[in-house]
């Protein structure tokens, strides 16, 4: 009796939440694929025609924005690794009893709305703001020097908003390193640089991988930073998709673009996983 119960119990527990994920995560993906192959407009409705040309048109119209988004995402991710690794390293190895406090400080931005944080940056970076105004007054920068509206501003926003997502996984990986392994390297006369290169960094790689996954994907599909901090010169694919969906109601084009973006990101992630070794992906996935 009890054994039978134990066999159904997990399914009963999983059922409501599992169905929710199925209906509102998996099914929508199918709906989006179907919508991208439909024709029509918002007034007369849409009909499935298998019109795949929407894809070729969308790609040829917006290839600049797609490539730009991937470049911004990649540059932001590289900067994030450089900025975040030392922070994660210091907290993991020197944080002592205050580790939790430092992690909390790194997570502080999450207590402020994403939109509000980004708008706050605009306030700081604006031409009359607290950063550029004094510099211009002092004659250190020219009258025509701007940060807002440039790719620099957009990438800075992306780096800022996703930094905690890079620090945390690297920290977790470093924290798990057995101190005896590092000691063993020293005992075998490895100098600090070699110890880092041959022992610590390889062990931190799964964390870096997870961090890249958690930052590159949202950064290259983001539209808030380029909308708030950028200009028409920095338009990212996210902005195009958002506008096609919510402003122009061109659902087939918008769905097709979303699908292309998703495929590009998936291919990117899997290629990257292939290069790094699939074992790491499984470790990350299992977490």
């Amino acid at each position, binding site marked *: 009796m009890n054994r039978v*119960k134990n066999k159904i*119990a*997990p*399914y009963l*527990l*999983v059922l*409501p*939440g*599992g169905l929710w*994920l*199925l209906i*509102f*995560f998996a099914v*929508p*993906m199918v*709906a*989006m694929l179907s919508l991208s192959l439909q024709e029509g407009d918002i007034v007369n409705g849409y009909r499935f025609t298998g019109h795949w040309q929407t894809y070729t048109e969308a790609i040829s119209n917006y290839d600049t924005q797609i490539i730009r988004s991937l470049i911004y995402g990649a540059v932001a991710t590289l900067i994030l690794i450089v*900025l975040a690794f*030392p*922070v994660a*390293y*210091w*907290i993991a*190895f*020197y944080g002592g009893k205050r580790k939790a406090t430092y992690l*909390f*400080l*790194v997570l*502080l*931005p*999450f*207590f*402020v*709305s*994403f*939109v*509000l944080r980004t*708008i706050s*940056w605009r*306030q*700081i970076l604006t031409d*009359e*703001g607290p950063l550029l105004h004094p510099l211009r007054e002092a004659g250190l920068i020219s009258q025509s020097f701007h940060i807002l509206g440039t790719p620099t501003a957009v990438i800075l926003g992306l780096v800022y908003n996703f*930094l905690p997502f890079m620090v945390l996984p690297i920290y977790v990986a470093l924290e798990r390193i057995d101190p005896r392994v590092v000691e063993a390297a020293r005992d075998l006369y490895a100098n*600090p640089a070699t110890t880092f290169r041959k022992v610590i960094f390889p062990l931190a790689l799964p964390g870096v991988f997870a961090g890249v996954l*958690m930052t590159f*994907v*949202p950064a290259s*599909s983001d539209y*808030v930073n380029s909308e*708030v901090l950028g200009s028409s010169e920095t338009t990212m694919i996210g902005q195009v998709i*958002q506008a096609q*969906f919510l402003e122009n109601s061109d*659902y087939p084009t918008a*769905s097709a673009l*979303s699908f292309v*973006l*998703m495929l590009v990101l998936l291919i990117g992630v899997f290629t990257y996983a292939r290069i790094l070794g699939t074992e790491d992906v499984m470790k990350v*996935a*299992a977490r």
Partner: protein
Amino acid sequence: MTTTTERPPAAEVEKAARIKPKRRITGGGILHAWTWVIIAWLVLPILVMILFGFNDTPGRYNQTWVGFTFKWYGRLFEYPDLTSALVTSLVIAVVASLLSGALGTGIGYALGRYRFRGSGSLNLIMFATMSSPELIMGASLLSLFVSAGAGLGPVTITIAHVMFSISFVAVVVRARVMTLDRSIEEAAADLGASPWTTFWKVTFPIILPAVFSGVLLAFALSIDDFIVTAFTAGTTKTFPLWIWGATRVGLPPQVNVMGTLIFAVGVFFALAANIRSSSKSKRD
């Protein structure tokens, strides 16, 4: 090290102990400074937001510093549509966090306790919801709602928020269930408690803190969410959506005040939860 090996003289040990931390401090010094630079950079826009909530700006244009005032805290609810957007956000966050708390706990408990067929696919779909770009989730949900002819509003926003929060709750609860000492439950069963009683009187109180932090996490995810919400809201305005719409006409200082209050409450809850769990682990 075995006890038979020759121990170095005490003076040498002391010397080594003195040298080692010193070397660590010089190496760690730069890293320590770097960590603080990054933290300062992370906190800077938050401070700007808080500061401009005290700015004595004449109207809706809150870009340059004029003077210090407390008046916006007194006139917090001056914009009815801003207030109602905040209320909408709060209501959605409460409903979505409770719902995803219940659904996520079910999944997390099952994954932590039982081995069953389909758990692999379940893990995969959870991983997918946690790592998919918000833009794609929002776009696909909108596609579903458009195809189904469903009207967009608070209900569709809540559905979306529950969807992306379930997995986070499940992960938190699963971690707690996995470390749970099963002998306590067996003891309850030995003392004649039915599985039902055992669950509610023994197991549930133990996993409750994890459920609670899962619900808090879901609440934070929901109240902060912008991208998925933008796609599923229709004409409904949540707090972040209202801010987004108002940026072109200027953000009144009340937005900064509300942002500051949400920040303060969030930090307070996080600290309270942290202190509670650390004092508890000391008692254990």
